């Protein structure tokens, strides 16, 4: 009998502060089935419930539900709210299930296995890692750590490991760091803001892809069969989202999760000033643009369902969850079409449009690309590419590279073979002769569209890196920032994401050349003005301190 592929697990839909009819809103999510060990410990996630503040190592889920010939049981399906909140076993399962769900989401969107950023395979997840309002991913510790703290108001404990969006956010940091290792390099406010912004986008869309959450937003009392047409305009939906999820509840977690949800629906386009160079604020602009596209598509889908001033509640909920799900796929897939270094939001906009266009050249149902162009434009994000065949998408390379010296079969998995291809074509690809050049990854992917056709692509990243002294910048046509010493050591990055089609031809070659003067100069100036060359070595874990700052920021 074949192994039963999935299991259903009860999780808290957003966090324990979100209620309907007096009960915490839960969801039953589907994740890969596997034979779990105690912890639970599976093939990609290992829950270690160690609290370093008290030195306690809990024994969690000592006998996990396992079954091969059908879906394993869900021990928490019938548990009361109090039982869930007080059970370390449930906390462990909740964290395990939501990390696995996020991972599975990335894998299905990208059409391949997705590794962590570190060499081992099992992510350690500590659901009660420390007393403190923080949660973060630490690559060098191969771990996701969730804190807990007591509410200042009444002393009740608040748990990071019970907040769906926080778990999805931290897992996304871990996955993004594995997919694009150079995005934590100092570069520009937008690259610095991207990690946070993207993690927020995945977290919000993952939460909205749950029908239970959308139901809560549309019908907080949980009673109506039909809802008024006035309740499903973009403005009304924003209001309901705030009321249902962001405004009065869960405030105590805002130190851990930031204000992504609130900001994404309250940030007005005219406030999204491109001059605001604060990375966090830039990240919020990206979140706001994507959430605006989400609402635009959702509202567009509901229009035809309205009859006599009202519409079916279940239909509205289904549409909301489906739109979130599809947009999430577009955003994750877009990563493959992003340059590996010095990412700007304009690149991400083109990447999203290209990702969707590749899968759905004729988008007649959702019109995602129109919505993305509209919403990104409203927030000042213009696609980096004009798009020869479809507005805003990347263009194929202008010059044909030579294929006759390499073997495509080998190129699909072997970085050395790929490096030969890149090297032999270095003039076509405009590489710097003296830079250190390396193929970072080779990833064959098979993506399945909703209409069932498969799209085979091989995604390759290569990096160029050159170290020079400030006085030598002239050789690249760059100006030394005013006041910078001539012997200041500088590292410049360039590199591309190369997409091969199923015949082994380069479909896209997306990136930033070391010779791109405008971008290199902008990055240099930004780092110099921002005191990067003066600043101390940063704390060992950039994610821990980003979140710490978010909590402590005095503004």
């Amino acid at each position, binding site marked *: 009998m074949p192994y039963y592929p999935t299991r259903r697990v009860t999780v808290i839909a957003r966090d324990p502060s979100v209620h309907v009819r007096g009960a915490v809103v839960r969801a039953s999510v589907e994740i890969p089935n596997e034979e779990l060990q105690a912890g639970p410990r599976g093939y990609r996630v290992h829950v*270690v419930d160690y609290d370093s*503040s008290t030195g306690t190592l*809990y024994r969690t889920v000592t006998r996990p539900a396992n079954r091969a010939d059908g879906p394993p049981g869900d021990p928490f399906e019938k548990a009361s709210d109090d039982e869930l909140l007080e059970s370390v076993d449930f906390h462990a399962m909740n964290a395990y299930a939501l990390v696995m769900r996020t991972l599975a989401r990335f894998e299905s969107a990208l059409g391949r296995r997705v590794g962590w950023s570190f060499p081992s395979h099992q992510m350690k997840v500590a659901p009660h890692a420390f*007393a403190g309002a923080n949660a973060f991913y630490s690559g060098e510790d191969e771990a996701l750590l969730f804190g807990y703290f007591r509410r200042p108001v009444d002393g009740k404990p608040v748990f990071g490991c019970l907040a769906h969006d926080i778990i999805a956010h931290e897992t996304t940091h871990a996955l993004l760091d594995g997919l694009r290792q150079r995005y934590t390099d100092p570069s520009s406010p937008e690259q610095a803001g991207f990690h946070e912004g993207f993690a927020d986008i995945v977290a919000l869309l993952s939460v909205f892809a749950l029908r239970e959450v959308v139901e809560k937003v549309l019908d907080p009392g949980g009673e109506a069969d039909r809802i008024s047409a006035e309740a499903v305009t973009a403005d009304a939906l924003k209001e309901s989202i705030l009321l249902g999820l962001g405004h009065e509840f869960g405030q105590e977690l805002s130190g851990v999760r930031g204000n992504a949800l609130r900001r994404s629906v309250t940030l007005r386009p005219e406030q999204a000033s491109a001059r605001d160079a604060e990375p966090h604020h830039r990240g919020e602009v990206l979140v706001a643009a994507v959430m605006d596209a989400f609402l635009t598509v959702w509202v567009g889908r509901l229009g035809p369902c309205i009859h006599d001033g009202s519409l079916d509640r279940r239909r509205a909920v289904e549409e909301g969850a489906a739109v979130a799900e599809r947009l999430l796929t577009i955003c994750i897939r877009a990563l493959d079409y992003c340059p590996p270094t010095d990412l700007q939001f304009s690149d991400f906009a083109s990447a999203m449009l290209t990702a969707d266009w590749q899968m759905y050249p004729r988008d007649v149902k959702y019109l995602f690309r129109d919505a993305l162009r509209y919403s990104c434009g409203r927030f000042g994000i213009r696609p980096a590419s004009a798009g020869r065949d479809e507005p805003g998408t990347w263009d194929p390379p202008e010059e044909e590279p030579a294929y006759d010296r390499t073997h495509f079969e080998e190129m699909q998995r072997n970085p050395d073979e790929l490096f030969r291809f890149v090297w032999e074509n270095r003039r076509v690809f405009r590489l710097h002769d003296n830079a250190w050049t390396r193929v970072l990854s080779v990833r064959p992917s098979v993506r399945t569209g909703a209409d069932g056709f498969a799209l085979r692509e091989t995604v390759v990243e290569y990096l160029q890196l050159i170290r020079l002294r400030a006085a030598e910048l002239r050789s690249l046509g760059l100006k030394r920032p005013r006041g910078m010493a001539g012997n200041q050591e500088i590292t410049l990055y360039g590199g591309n994401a190369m997409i091969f089609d199923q015949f082994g031809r380069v479909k896209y070659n997306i990136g930033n050349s070391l010779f791109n003067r405008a971008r290199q100069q902008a990055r240099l100036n930004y780092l110099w003005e921002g*005191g990067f060359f003066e600043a101390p070595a940063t704390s060992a874990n950039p994610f821990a301190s980003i979140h710490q700052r978010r*909590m402590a920021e005095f*503004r």
Partner: protein
Amino acid sequence: MTPDKVILRAWNVGFGDCFLLTFRYGAEQRRILIDFGSSAPPPGAPANHMLRIARDIAAQGRLHAVVATHRHRDHISGFGGECGKVIASLDPEVVVQPWTEDPDAPPGCAADDDVQNRAAVENLAAMGRQGRAVYTHAGAPSGLEDVLPGVEIRVAGPPTLEQSAAIRHERARDATEFWQFRRFLESQVNGAAPADLFPHAPRFAPETAPENLRWFLARAQRIRAEQRKDLVRALDRVLNNTSVILLFRTGDFSMLFPGDAQIENWSWALGQKQCRDLLRGVNVYKVGHHGSFNATPRSLWKLFAHRSTKPDAPGRLLSLVSTRSGKHGSERAHTEVPRRTLMEALARESNLFCTQDLPKSTPWRDFEFPLNGGKSHE
């Protein structure tokens, strides 16, 4: 009434600040003490070093006002204990502190169990009740106007939550939230270990952790230690950014005292044209945060018009650094205080005075500035 002279006395308190301004109006004198604290005494100083300074302050005569720029030990420790009694006995008329210390305005900010430097904080509040307590913010009156007639006093920081929000074009953050964060940070740094959250949950006895978990447990303990360090740093930064920034101006002479303000605090002042114009004319700059790399924004330093690379330039800017090397940071990580590159820039373009260069026998120096357009001399 306009002053004809001001005398600035700077003490070597080690790592901390203590400045006394004496404005002379003919035969009459008005005195303001700006900060009195230390977190590490000068090397080889006697145990009662701070008390001696308190007595020295008292010996100068009447003290009219006290400014406590922010609630850090190195700025207010001298307002507690025996030293605090000496200062309180001088009956200052006005006590100036940042708006964040106001016990009435923000909800739930009354001193709680976690307050740091409690004795000093309470003594400052008591002195304020005795005289007049002023909790100021950027653009507001300093409360020193009556004490110092003929001196224009500008408060350039700290911005309120609304002012900060305006700079960033965003909605003002709720005041309660700010207080919760600050108190929360304080409780995290000072708080005891939390009680057992799951008293009935099964657990491993110490030393019986399975082999496959041991590596991670060691890492988790190290992360915990780093977290605490980060929290202390975060709290520090929040408090530094509540520093009162004062600019005193009379005629064409002006002095700037920014406490430990960092860039977030400066942002309001640097965004106001009028403020920038005033900052341009500064003659005496009390260097922020003991010369650390993050308290003298490049944009501020560039504004000062009296900078000059010529040591004998008339009216050259005077920079005062009150610090003690080797107490904080490391040169390797570029975090040493005072920061070498900043000190080099200060020495290159201004007359640099550093309290730690004072001899042990006389741990203070007076700077006298005639206030009728005359030449400054010590």
